[in-house]
């Protein structure tokens, strides 16, 4: 999510393919290094309820995740 623009697609790929995963990891690191927060929208299998999952490392992304959303880190307003 980019201020002034909304949703911007950074990169996409299949994490099961080595080449794609390399690109996904690089994009993930680049965004976190730029000070962004990363979250994965998840759905509880039992209750069906949705929530966000904050991730701090690429390895924390659930395998079934379809997307990772980056947004500017929070600051006191």
């Amino acid at each position, binding site marked *: *999510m*980019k*201020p*002034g*623009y*909304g*949703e911007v697609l950074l990169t996409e790929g299949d994490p099961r393919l080595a080449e794609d995963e390399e690109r996904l990891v690089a994009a993930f690191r680049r965004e976190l290094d*730029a*000070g962004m*927060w990363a*979250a994965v*929208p998840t759905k*509880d299998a039992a*209750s069906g*309820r*949705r*929530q*966000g*999952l*904050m991730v701090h490392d690429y390895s924390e992304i659930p395998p079934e995740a379809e997307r990772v*959303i980056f*947004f*500017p*880190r*929070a*600051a*006191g*307003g």
Partner: protein
Amino acid sequence: MLLALLALGLLAAALLLPAAMDAVRARRAGSRRTGARVPRERLSVRDPGRERRAEQRARELLRSCLNGEEWAMYRELGFIRVAGRTIVRGAGEGGRAADSDRAATGVGDESPAPAGAADGPHRAGEPGEPPTDEHSYAYLVYPHKPIVAYEPATRRLLSEYCVEFPDLSDAVTGARLPDSDDVLAKWMALTGDEQRLLRDANMHLPGRQLDPGRVRRDLWRLEEWERRRRRSAEAPRG
């Protein structure tokens, strides 16, 4: 005679030369200043539809992430409610005092529950679960306004958490997230890591930025909205 006129002409030219050079210098400097007044980068034309398109994309993204009830709430009321998930330490003076400390500092131990949220034996909400009277507190999330913590059981307002998601890479333009992206960022941070968001926010007593009367009105609107939804869900079809 001719010699005298020539000498006079040379004298006049010598006298006028410095003044002419000053005029030329002034004109050149003037044109430079004029150029500086209108930088090239500011000549770019602003796209009036950009923000509208960004908000449309943001709404789609928000809809795809929220629970159905939350999306309907945002679409119809303009805000969403998120159940507080921090487990509040038990009732009693000890717990209450600890929470008062947190209310004063906005930081502290591992459970930065809203000020005043430890007045009874409450349980924390499950992820994304609508709060019930059993929950100690919940939040109202508005776009580009503070997050308001309140007690669902009593409708008592607890605190305001002023938080924003600024674009640090482009602080000059001061661009901000579209409304729906701001709500989504708050929702993900609250449901994903409530404590971290509260630590980064500035906590104030209710009424600092939002009119408490308006918030109470929104709580009433929310109750009415839920009552209508329950009634329509229970109504026999046919």
